[in-house]
């Protein structure tokens, strides 16, 4: 299956953020969206999710215009993992993950036994089943990110779209979330995530999409697209490239 945007002009009611954007995500692959602040990453992400309507061009899901899907049908194919937030109300972790089942029920329905089984399996997969009865507001930032991932998986989607999944996490949890992103692709999901760190794209993504001032600078396999010249152009800042002599792994340092 494929989630794709053709000739997208993206933005809000009063201003345009980006023009002429083509982007495609297949199931089983990870695409990283990179670019400076204000470059249009989040706007493109929300347009692909159907939360914003493109001002021109079209988003297609499995060949059909995204607008032809009902909001419920869409949520059964594409899941959204927002930036980690602290909710207003202290819902239990179990309830938060169960909310991922909303699109599988009707307007007046309550979660079924099957919904509970799916949610529990999702919690198990991310190793957080022991948190099920804890309030979502009382767990750590890393745990919250995993809960939101578990909720997305409980939607049983084909695609998972994540907004800066590593932004507020400590070093160890960043690695954990990147590993889970890779695992999602291995289990057949298409994953799109935004990040400020090119190293996270190198670590978890198959392809990278570089976006500056609403224009695509590059789109291709990470080891081709993510090089010093390209990153210096993207961020308009000097970048240093490091290579691990033992493994050959590459990393970038800012400045």
């Amino acid at each position, binding site marked *: 299956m494929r989630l794709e945007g053709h000739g997208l002009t993206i933005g809000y009611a009063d201003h345009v953020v980006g023009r002429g954007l083509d982007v495609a995500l297949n199931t089983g692959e990870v695409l990283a969206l990179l670019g400076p602040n204000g470059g249009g990453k989040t706007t493109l992400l929300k347009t692909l999710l159907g939360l914003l309507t493109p001002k021109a061009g079209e988003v297609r899901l499995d060949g059909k215009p995204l607008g032809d899907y009902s909001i419920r049908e869409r949520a059964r194919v594409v*899941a959204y993992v927002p930036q980690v937030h602290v909710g207003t109300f202290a819902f239990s972790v179990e309830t938060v993950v169960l909310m991922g089942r909303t699109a599988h029920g009707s307007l007046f329905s309550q979660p079924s036994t099957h919904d509970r089984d799916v949610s529990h399996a999702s919690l198990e997969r991310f190793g957080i089943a022991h948190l099920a009865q804890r309030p979502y507001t009382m767990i750590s930032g890393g745990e919250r990110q995993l809960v939101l991932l578990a909720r997305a998986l409980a939607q049983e989607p084909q695609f998972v779209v994540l907004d800066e999944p590593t932004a507020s996490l400590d070093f160890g949890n960043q690695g954990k979330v990147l590993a889970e992103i890779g695992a999602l692709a291995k289990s057949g999901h298409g994953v799109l995530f935004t990040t400020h760190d090119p190293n996270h794209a190198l670590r978890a993504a198959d392809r990278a999409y570089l976006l500056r001032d609403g224009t695509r600078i590059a789109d291709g396999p990470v080891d081709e697209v993510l090089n010093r010249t390209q990153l210096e152009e993207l961020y308009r800042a000097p970048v240093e490239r490091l290579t691990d002599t033992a493994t050959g792994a590459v990393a970038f340092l800012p400045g």
Partner: protein
Amino acid sequence: MCGEVMNRSALPGLAIATGVLIAGLLLAFTVGRYPVSLGELMSVLLAKLSGGRADVAPAVESVILQVRGPRVLAAVLVGSALAVAGTAFQGLFRNPLVSPDILGASSGAALGAVIGIFFSLGIVAIQGFAFIGGLVAVGAVYAIGSAVRSRDPILVLVLTGVVVGALLGAGVGLVKYLADPYNQLPAMTFWLLGSLSATGVPDLLPLFGPVALGTAVLIALRWRMNAMSLPEEEARALGIATGPLRVAIVAAATLTTSASVATAGIIGWVGLVVPHLARSLVGPDFARLLPTAAILGGGYLLLIDTLARTMAEVEIPLGILTAVVGTPFFIWLLASMQRNWS
């Protein structure tokens, strides 16, 4: 009612709420200028249920069935209605500090009622005016709020409610200024302070219908209301058509608020205080929270109303007592929430 979600941890909270309601019922029937014993109360109620005759003085039976009965039922319904509406609005606006009157329901109903009194209409017409005033005010707030394009529709809606509420308040002031100071002005003042003292049997059906309908709609939507308390885009990404659902929730909560304001006048704070107490009993899951808030709200207002008619020689307006309890509660809430806002 919602067996699957009611796990063990919800039951103690629900039991406490029910206990408060039962205590409120017993107190409200027995305490007052004409004391009634528990035995007399039981025999009258049993006789009424079985269709037989109670073995008590006729005056006691009349106090229980004609005087206190309608007032007790009205207090339970009004308290439930305000608590359920407050619970819904707090979830919908993702803010535990809002109350049912946030969208102008109370101020609209107040203007409707004082206009009714100004034209010397009967009590039913006054209630009808109050009811329509509340619905029209919320409809106007909603129309204006939707017309203003913004990335934060919730904030726009709440601010529009504050602004329209202020305008309606000015309208109430104008009508009071023009009113006959000897006949109409006192009636308006008492109505605006909130009271159940004039409630009789004919008031019960117009109160029960809208309150039951609005509460039933909200309880039917209880699972969706959990996801509705998430940020707008998140709720939509979970598969919820947030626009139509928000209209349904606002309409149902406004219906219960307007009906209770039309019967009892302006009784503030119940819709703010009770949802918090209910949340501390059973947690934020609306499947448990809505029934608990409904039961607890009924008991809470019943206790306050009993206090209102027994603590002094003259009856104290309900709105004043709920404010005396509610204001310190609100300040405490504000202080204890500070850390979450930083």
